[in-house]
């Protein structure tokens, strides 16, 4: 009987936990995606990138580069964009290079604490701003 009660309590605790996690995730994830998308895909971002690529192209043309070569070089310049997508893909799939720094057990703990401190600071900053 008491076992059943503790199981029930455990189930309730888990449901509450899931509810809390989903509550945060449901606002944070879409905001994060919106931020990433907005940084690259907006009229302003397009204009800025166009201005940079255009200036690059214009400079090449003015220095006497043939048109097709200038276009090709500008295309390579813009190609950095595509590599950004590749980078994201690698980061998500975990195929990217991993750097391992050997700092020992104590060092790891220190780094962990430092990261936790920084995250807390950022959260506090954000909540203050909001």
């Amino acid at each position, binding site marked *: 009987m008491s076992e059943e009660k503790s199981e029930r309590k455990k189930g309730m605790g888990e*449901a509450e936990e899931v*509810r809390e996690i989903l509550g945060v995730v449901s606002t944070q994830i879409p905001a994060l995606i919106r931020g990433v998308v907005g940084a690259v895909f907006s009229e302003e971002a397009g204009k800025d990138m166009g201005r940079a690529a255009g200036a690059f192209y214009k400079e090449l043309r003015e220095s006497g580069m043939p048109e097709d070569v200038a276009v090709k070089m500008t295309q390579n310049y813009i190609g950095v964009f595509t590599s950004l997508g590749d980078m994201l893909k690698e980061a998500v799939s975990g195929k990217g290079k991993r750097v391992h720094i050997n700092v020992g057990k104590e060092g790891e703990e220190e780094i962990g604490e430092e990261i936790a401190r920084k995250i807390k600071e950022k959260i506090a900053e954000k909540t203050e701003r909001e």
Partner: protein
Amino acid sequence: MVKIQDLLSIASSIVRITGSLLILWATFGWKVRKTRRAFERELIRQGMSKEDARELSAHYKVLKDQLTSTLIQALRR
């Protein structure tokens, strides 16, 4: 037993996430078109031909496809 309130809250969170992602997905194409147009306009202003500008702006479409597939891949995990 799980509280009905918790279940309702979980369901509403899932609906909220799905709705937000659907809206994002639906407006993504429109945002890409707008960005491409602004990008092309700037290139044309600097003296590039319309065709070349259009060809260069195709990178945005490639990036869009990559981002979409990355997101889908991440959500599947």
